[in-house]
């Protein structure tokens, strides 16, 4: 059997893996991006707060601090060119107690040390005038102007797409279960027996990074899964707050936030609960209550009544207090990118840069890919002017057919989300990319139509469409 040989195999197409693949696609090195699921952004990347953090949280001098601040810069610099939904709405860490006031002062100092620009301590009056729905008990807030909200999916889809367009091979449904050695190459074996080989394996397997490392004999870290529950509120409540509203950080994370999402809904969460089963993304009654009780401390009027959906995300906790990024001591063919907990989403683009820098320092000679192009354009029909709408419909009439009425998503956009690089392969993939099914009817109306479009574009029967790959089929196989 012929096994394709790569210079680099990146395991895990989440935000870290996608940005690493993106960065590698700037060079002629032969790279593949391996994902165990049917789509990119299926782990921690798809279910988090989607905040681009300013960088005042991490301890000065850590990799976390450095990559957070750099990541924030890169997101602000790249989001337009790569068409990643991002709004720099700024964040507040609010103080409700004496202790909180000390804490936000500390965060301010930390931020200055980390090189964060645009930090300010606001008085009670300033805080309430900017955010009138905050608790009247608020004493003031740390304001960070460079913070914002993004589409966490697109923070992975966009670099994965650019990487694919620039020569990286995206390999889906490849769950690495074994390795063997073939000279300088490591041969990765998937659960269904497929094999690929690579000179350097970059382990960005999220919460499963310790299992991948263990295959290489590296047991230097252990991943813990920390579950966080969230709820999304209807966009009719979108003006409840205008910035990201944090409470001061607690032991297990940044606490419960209330924020606008990039799409104008409100997000509430997360809780923080260490769990044994790394894939247990269930929501719980207690978790939802904790999230709302916490959120009401900041914004008393936030209400469960406006929830349109709830979900859980798994944060990969490395236990070292910092990102674990570097060549493995156990096997020089392995490069670990693990423990990418918050602010991992923000740090993503900077992680990509940093990984390539470290690999180059180790002696790998990178040659520039002369054709590299990171321009990416996504049509978002809803946001176009009427003239632009007409122009695009004249070009492709499918942009004139609205499929998802809650979010005004057209057939053209859905087809595009399937056909573009690192495109959607299933219902959730379409939903994450274009928001069809993400609104108040949660796919009740557009679901069957999206199934039809997926079937047509992927040239499969409608009955083979899945919600998110694997056994998540939508219907029975046979027609009635």
């Amino acid at each position, binding site marked *: 059997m012929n096994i394709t040989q790569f210079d680099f195999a990146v395991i895990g197409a989440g935000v870290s893996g996608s940005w690493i693949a993106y960065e590698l696609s700037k060079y002629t090195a032969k790279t593949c991006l391996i994902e165990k699921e049917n789509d990119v952004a299926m782990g921690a990347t798809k279910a988090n707060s989607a905040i681009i953090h300013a960088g005042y949280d991490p301890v000065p001098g850590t990799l976390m601090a450095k990559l957070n601040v750099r990541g924030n810069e890169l997101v602000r610099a790249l989001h337009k060119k790569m068409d990643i939904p991002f709004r720099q709405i700024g964040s507040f860490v609010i103080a409700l107690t004496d202790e909180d006031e000390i804490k936000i002062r500390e965060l301010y100092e930390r931020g200055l040390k980390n090189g964060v620009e645009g930090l300010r301590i606001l008085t009670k009056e300033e805080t309430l005038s900017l955010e009138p729905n905050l608790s009247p008990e608020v004493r003031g807030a740390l304001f960070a102007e460079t913070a914002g909200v993004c589409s966490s999916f697109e923070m992975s889809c966009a670099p994965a797409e650019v990487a694919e367009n620039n020569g990286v091979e995206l390999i889906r449904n490849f769950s690495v279960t074994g390795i063997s050695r073939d000279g300088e190459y490591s041969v990765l074996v998937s659960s269904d027996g497929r094999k690929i080989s690579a000179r350097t394996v970059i382990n960005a397997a999220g919460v499963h990074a310790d299992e991948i490392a263990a295959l290489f004999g590296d047991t230097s870290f252990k991943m813990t899964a920390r579950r966080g529950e969230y709820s999304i509120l209807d966009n009719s409540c979108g003006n409840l707050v205008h910035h990201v509203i944090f409470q001061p950080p607690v032991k297990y994370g940044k606490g419960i936030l209330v924020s606008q999402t990039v799409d104008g809904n409100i997000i509430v969460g997360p809780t923080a609960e260490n769990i044994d089963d790394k894939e247990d993304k*269930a929501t719980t009654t207690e*978790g939802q209550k904790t999230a709302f009780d916490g959120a009401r401390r900041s914004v008393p009027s936030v209400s469960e009544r406006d929830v*349109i959906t709830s979900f859980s995300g798994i944060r990969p906790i490395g236990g070292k207090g910092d990102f674990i990024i570097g060549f493995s001591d156990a096997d020089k063919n392995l490069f670990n990118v693990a423990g990418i907990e918050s602010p991992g989403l923000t740090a993503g683009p900077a992680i990509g840069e940093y990984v390539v820098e470290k690999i180059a320092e180790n002696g790998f000679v990178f040659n520039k890919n002369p054709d590299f192009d990171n321009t990416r354009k996504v049509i978002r029909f809803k946001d176009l002017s009427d003239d632009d709408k*007409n122009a695009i419909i004249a070009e492709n*009439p499918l942009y004139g057919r609205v499929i998802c*009425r809650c979010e005004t998503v057209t057939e053209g956009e859905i087809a595009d989300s399937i056909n573009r690089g690192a495109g959607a392969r299933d219902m959730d993939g379409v939903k994450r990319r274009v928001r069809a099914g993400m609104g108040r009817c949660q796919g009740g109306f557009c679901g069957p139509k999206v199934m039809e479009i997926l079937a047509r574009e992927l040239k499969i029967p409608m009955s083979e469409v899945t919600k998110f790959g694997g056994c998540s089929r939508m219907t029975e196989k046979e027609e009635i």
Partner: protein
Amino acid sequence: MKMNVDVAVIGGGPAGLAAAIECRKNGVENILVIERDRQLGGILNQCIHPGFGLHVFGEELTGPEYAQRYINMLSETDVKTLTDTMVLSLSPDRVIRAVNTTLGVVEIHAKAVILAMGCRERTRGMLRIPGTRPSGIYTAGTAQRLVNIEGLMPGKNTVILGSGDIGLIMARRMTLEGAKVSGVYEIMPKSGGLKRNIVQCLNDFGIPLHLSRTAVEIHGRERIEGITVASVDENLAPIKGTEEYVECDTLLLSVGLIPENELSRGAGILIDPKTKGPVCETGFETSVPGIFACGNVFKVYDLVDNVTKDSVLAGKSAAEYVKNKTA
């Protein structure tokens, strides 16, 4: 592109069709019906079961037949239709922006507007049932579309949550197509569905209806594998110790309908927090002059015959309004 019409009807289901026909009968000449689907008839097209039309036509019809009668009546008039067309916005001065594949964005200036957009189903997200998020969970109406229009079965072993009429109808439909429907769970002490549907959709097929019992957790990672159900107390809170695991590969939700009033809100129309439909004075006129509402967008009806009756009145009022304006 710009259009001027006397009356624009948003939605070509039973409400919109009856209102448009009535407007025409009352002398309005330039009427436009805008429908998002490729055919008129609305949700009736997927309601293939009988039980429609006894009051209006004195005979028992299926949904598609009932719809076809109105489509035929409409086609005998000069009322214009735009199908496969989605309304994007409605302004308080009755300017509609709509879009389709051939005309692009169309601006429609109407002397009067009749809202007839229907309703949507309450979802799992709104119920906030804890647990996993696998495939195989559908609202009853979505399942109805899959089965009756696409010819695809959502699954083989179904549990139905909520005893709304569409859920009951789907219990029978799935059973007839060979699926097992192991039970219907209703959180309230009595069913929200019509008595006749309990008899002919559940009792006829020996499907149990469990009252004061509801789903408290969803299980299954990829495809749904089961739900935990529990009895509830008078405050509808689950009672500890009454939990039971019910295996299923499909969960259908029939837990209520909500008038679809996003466009109405955009036009500044007052919404009744109870019915979730527009507050209407006499003649189905909303709080914005010249904008009328009928059918499930106004309030959720049990019966299409009643939708038709009220929509006729709305059509009459709109015609009156246009006449007074032009006079």
